[in-house]
């Protein structure tokens, strides 16, 4: 029953997505999709594998530059440009992953940040990135050489970039579906197991480094897809895309919406991007407002708002399940034995 409910919900969302550009400014929607895909890709790593990367802007922005350059200067069609950006991000993810995947916790976060800063300086200094200006006026081009993505339709006094909108919407849906499939796959089970108890996964014979590396590469690749798509939407690849602010934003989006939930990062991205856009008149105070909302959310809903919502829905549907007989004692005993991993690390 829950399954058919989900299917109905999905169809409704799909219809909303198809109709949305007639109601809401399409470029804003496309921006939402790009960041939502970015956050979902990031969540594969943070929420499902348990790895906190502080350098994901390197993949988002790196792909943005590569796609921008290829489309603008090498005559790539938009879909080939995005594909190239995605593959480049995957390759960068592989290199980052090789260098970081053996590290744990804060060291992992710090090294990913350091590597991302290297990418930032390359973007600043390299001859083909446009330095402080970035790559501007990237053409939107023709999809498959046929459909003009730059075309705007004029309806009721509004100009709508419908071709580009449906292209971006399709990319978002495909990326989201791929991540959903990844999470609900044999591989998805194993990364969750690693997140839950890595030494145990090792003791069951899993080569956790390879598996974590694959998760990292998938996450980087789809972050790249998001960044590449963003370049076509704004016709711009800039230093902001590779900066640590962007790395921080995606952490925020994911935590806000709910770590390790499928829809959470989408909601988180929508919230953060809406606030940034809606409050842009107050300048740098946006950061303060978002920071305050973040603090409130963390205090009120530990699981993020989607996590909290799904818990409430579950409760309503299933009734409050009493926990197993000695559930309370169990907490105490585990507290006592908590300092485990030290004994297992070499």
């Amino acid at each position, binding site marked *: 029953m829950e399954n058919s409910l989900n299917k109905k919900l999905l169809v409704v969302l799909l219809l909303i997505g198809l109709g949305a550009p007639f109601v809401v400014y399409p470029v804003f929607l496309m921006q939402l999709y790009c960041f939502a895909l970015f956050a979902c890709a990031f969540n594969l790593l943070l929420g499902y594998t348990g790895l906190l990367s502080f350098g994901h802007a390197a993949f988002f922005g790196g792909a943005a530059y590569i796609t921008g350059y290829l489309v603008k200067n090498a005559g790539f069609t938009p879909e080939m440009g995005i594909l190239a950006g995605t593959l480049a991000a995957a390759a960068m993810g592989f290199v980052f992953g090789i260098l970081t995947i053996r590290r744990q916790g804060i060291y992992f976060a710090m090294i990913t940040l350091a590597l991302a800063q290297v990418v930032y300086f390359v973007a600043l200094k390299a001859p083909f990135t446009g330095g402080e200006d970035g790559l501007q006026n990237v053409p939107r081009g023709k999809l498959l050489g046929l459909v003009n993505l730059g075309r705007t339709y004029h309806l009721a006094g509004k100009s709508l970039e419908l071709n580009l909108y449906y292209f971006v919407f399709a990319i978002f849906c495909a990326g989201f579906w791929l991540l959903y499939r990844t999470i609900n796959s*044999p591989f998805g089970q194993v990364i969750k197991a690693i997140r*839950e108890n890595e*030494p145990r996964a090792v003791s*069951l014979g899993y*080569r956790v480094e390879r*598996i974590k590396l694959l998760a990292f590469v998938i996450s980087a690749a789809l972050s790249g897809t998001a960044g590449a798509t963003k370049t076509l939407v704004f016709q711009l690849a800039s230093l902001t895309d590779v900066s640590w602010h962007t790395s921080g934003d995606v952490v925020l989006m994911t935590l806000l919406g709910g770590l390790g939930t499928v829809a959470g990062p989408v909601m988180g991205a929508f919230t953060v991007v809406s606030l940034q856009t809606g409050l842009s008149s107050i300048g740098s105070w946006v950061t303060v407002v978002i920071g305050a909302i973040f603090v409130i959310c963390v205090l009120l809903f530990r699981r993020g708002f989607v996590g909290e919502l799904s818990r409430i829905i579950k409760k309503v549907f299933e009734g409050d399940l009493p926990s197993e007989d000695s559930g309370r004692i169990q907490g105490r*005993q585990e507290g006592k034995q908590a300092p*485990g991993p030290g004994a297992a690390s*070499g």
Partner: protein
Amino acid sequence: MAQWVLETKKLSKEFRGFLAVSQVDIRVQKGCVHALIGPNGAGKTTVFNLLTRFITPSSGAIFFNGVDITKKKPAEVALMGMVRSFQISAVFPNLTPFENVRIALQRPLGTACHFWKPLSSLDTLSDKIMELLEAVGLQQLAHRPTVELAYGRKRALEIATTLALEPEMMLLDEPTQGMGAEDVERITELVRKVAAGRTILMVEHNLKVVASLAERITVLNRGKVLAEGHYEEISRNPSVMEAYMGSENG
């Protein structure tokens, strides 16, 4: 080919000048339940970590079925058929017991990296999963979050997960620790049941459990082997009694 499934030669581990395990020779016979006992801090868990290659020995060698595994990786050792449990309960708490067991069962399928396949590709494992959960009395709780299970049931789940790999040898680190009498009995029976057809090396504090299960016992004290033999021999050994009782009371 040696008759020993597991054999260590002068196995030692030093932690920054502190000799936690010193010149340990343990030999475990095929098909045997072998207990490793000793006071707290004797180095039992460290020996387990060495055997399963979670930590690297300072010196000495480890042989599994005559193969030198001293330089192997922990996952490789597991693939060779020696699977351990942990002193702290080693479950995947936010997965269900069903999923916990499935993680172990799916490993031999070699689909760990198949991110494009649906979960239903694992449906063929369902019967086997339920069979294993039934063996440890968890079939009713198969789809509840594991965090909600009582402690004893988590240990049982851990054994079911380990069993799923059909390991030739199981290493159990204090499987009955922190349990009430009823759970202790249940786990004891479970270990007896799963011991059929495989070798078990277990660390255990509860001497009643040791007496009823173990065919051979190695006593460890301050990182060294103090004695080895049958339960009767061990329990008559005065230096064992002294080391064991002395620090048990202290």
